[in-house]
C-alpha cells in the first residue's frame, strides 16, 4: 500500500492561530493519572492524527477535548475561547463533533433518527437539508437503510452512521476515534477516503488511530502518545520516515 498516495500536501509549518489548543492537560480516572500533560495543536484545515498503543490515552484525550471529561489541570482552547470546563452538550453548538470510540450509535433508533440526533441543536431547515444530502452523498448506504434500526447495520455501516451523525452537528473540528476499528481492509480504505472528502469540504479533523499506516497516509501532522504523554509530534511525512515510529507502529 502506498500510504502517501492521494494524501493532502503536508503542512510543514502550520501557521496562524490554532483551532484547537490543548495545553498541559492532566486527566484522571479516579486515582489513575491517564493524561500526564498533553499539549497539542490542531490548525484550521488540518488533518491531525493521534497515534499510540492501547491505553496510551488517545480516547481520553478526545473525551477531554469534547467535554465528556474535564482535565484536572491544564487548559483547552477552541476557536479562540477557553473550553476547558464547558460540558459536552454545549461544545456541540460551538463546532466540536465527536464520533466516539466503538461508534456508540443509538441501536434502537432508526438510521434517520440517529442522523436527526446529530442535528439536535440545529434549527435552520435549509441548512439541515443540505447536510442530510451531504451525509447521504458521502454514504449512499445510509440513505438506503434510513428507516432501519441502527443496531441492525453492519460494522462498517455503523461506522458510517457514527461519522455521518457527527457531521450532522456541522462541526468545525471533527474528532474521530478509531474509525477503522474492526473493519475489513477494503472498508478501512473507504472510511479514510471519506475522511479525505470531509476534509476537502472544509472540516478540520483530529483522528485517533491504531492503524498508523492509514492515519499517516491522510494526515498532515501526527502526535505519538505513550502512557499519557506526547512523546513525539511532527509532520506525517517525517513520522513515516522516523525509524522508531516505523518499528513501533508501522510494522517496519
Amino acid at each position, binding site marked *: 500500500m502506498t500510504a502517501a498516495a492521494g494524501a493532502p500536501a503536508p503542512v510543514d509549518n502550520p501557521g496562524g492561530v490554532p483551532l484547537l489548543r490543548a495545553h498541559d492537560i492532566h486527566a484522571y480516572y479516579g486515582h489513575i493519572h491517564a493524561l500526564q500533560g498533553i499539549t497539542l495543536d490542531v490548525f484550521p484545515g488540518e488533518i491531525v492524527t493521534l497515534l499510540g498503543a492501547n491505553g496510551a490515552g488517545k480516547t481520553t484525550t478526545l473525551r477531554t477535548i469534547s467535554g465528556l471529561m474535564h482535565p484536572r489541570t491544564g487548559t483547552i482552547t477552541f476557536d479562540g475561547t477557553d473550553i476547558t470546563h464547558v460540558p459536552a452538550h454545549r461544545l456541540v453548538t460551538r463546532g466540536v463533533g465527536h464520533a466516539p470510540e466503538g461508534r456508540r450509535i443509538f*441501536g434502537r433508533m432508526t438510521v434517520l433518527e440517529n442522523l436527526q440526533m446529530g442535528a439536535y441543536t440545529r434549527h435552520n431547515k435549509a441548512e439541515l437539508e443540505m447536510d442530510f444530502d451531504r451525509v447521504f452523498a458521502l454514504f449512499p448506504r445510509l440513505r438506503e437503510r434510513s428507516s432501519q434500526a441502527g443496531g441492525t447495520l453492519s460494522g462498517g455501516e455503523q461506522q458510517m452512521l457514527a461519522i455521518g451523525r457527527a457531521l450532522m*452537528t456541522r462541526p468545525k473540528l471533527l474528532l474521530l476515534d478509531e474509525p477503522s476499528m474492526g473493519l475489513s481492509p477494503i472498508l478501512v480504505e473507504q472510511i479514510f477516503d471519506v475522511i479525505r472528502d470531509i476534509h476537502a469540504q472544509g472540516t478540520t479533523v483530529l483522528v485517533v488511530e491504531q492503524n498508523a499506516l492509514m492515519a499517516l497516509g491522510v494526515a498532515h501532522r501526527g502526535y505519538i502518545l505513550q502512557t499519557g504523554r506526547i512523546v513525539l509530534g511532527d509532520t506525517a511525512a517525517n513520522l513515516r520516515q522516523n525509524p522508531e515510529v516505523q518499528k513501533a507502529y508501522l510494522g517496519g
Partner: protein
Amino acid sequence: MSAAATPVARRRPRVGRLNNLLVIVLVLIAAYVIIAIPSGDQAQQQFVNAVTIGAIYALIALGYTMVYGIIELINFAHGEIFMCGSFVSWWLLTTLGFSGAISDPILLIGVLILAFAVSMVVMGIVGVVIERLAYRRLRNAPRLAPLITAIGVSFILQNIVFVVVSNSIVTTPQIIPNTQLALGPISINLINLFVIVLAVGLMVALQLFIGRTRLGRAMRSTAIDRDAAQLMGVDINTTIALTFFIGSALAGAAGVVQGLYFGITVFNIGFQAGLKAFTAAVLGGIGNTTGAALGGFVIGFLEVISSVWGQGRWSEAVVFGMLVLVLVFRPTGILGQQLADRA
C-alpha cells in the same frame, strides 16, 4: 461495500401488527369468558372495572419504566407520587367546596381539567425536585445507593402526608355523576368511560411524544447511551428532569383518578399501588413504555379475575405469582426491554 449486512444482534422476528391485534383480541375474549363464568350478568361491569383498574396501574407503571429506562433506577418513591397526587386533588376539590357529584356538565369538565392540571403539574414538579435533590448526586454511585435513597424518599413522602394531612382514610369527592351510558351493546358507567378514555389518551400522547418529537428522541437517546447523547448536544440533566416530570405527572393523574373512582385515599395507598404498578412495568418489560401500559392492564384483569372467582384475598398472590412466572420464562418481560436496550 459488501452487500451482506450482517445484523449485529439477532433479534426476535417482528410479529406483524395484525398478529398482535389478533393476540390481544383473543386474550380479551378469554379474559371476558373467565370473568363471565362466575359473575354471570355482572360480567360486563366487571370487565369494564378490570380495564379501569388496569388503566390506573398503567399510568403509574409508565413512570417506573420511563425512569428505569433513562437512569436504571427503580424509583420506589413513585408510588408515593401517585398517593400525593390523590391528596392534591382531594385538597383542591374540597377547598373549592365540592363534596359530591357535579351535575352541570360544563362546570364538571372545568373542574376536572383544573384538578388534573394542578395535580399533574404539582406532582411533576415534585418528581423533578426529588430527582434534583436525592438522585442526581448519586447518578454515578453504585446502584444500591440510589435504590435505598428512593425507599427513603418514599418514607419521607408518606410521613409528610401522615403528619401534615391525615393519618387515616380520607374521603375524596366523587364529582363525576354515577350515570350508566349505553354505547351500542355495551353499558358503561360514565366514570369508567372517563378513566379509560383519559388513560388511553395520555398513553397515546406519551407514545407520540417519545416516538415523534425532538425531545422524545433526546429521551430515547439518553436512555440508550448517555455519553453519545451528550455528544449530540443533548443536555442530559434537563432530559432526565423532563423524564421525571412526565412520569410523575402521569402518576399525579392516576392519583386524581384514584380519588374520583374509589372515593377514598390514605397516606400509605402508594405502597401497594406502587408495588403492583412496578410489577406491571416488569411484566411488560421494564424500560418499555408500551410494555408498562400492557402490564398495567394485565394486572387489572388479574385482580378482577381473582376477586370474581371469590378469591379476592389471593389477588396479590396471583399478581406476584404471575410476575414470578413471567420472569422465569421470559426474564425481559412480555415485550422486552426496549428503551433500556443498548446498541
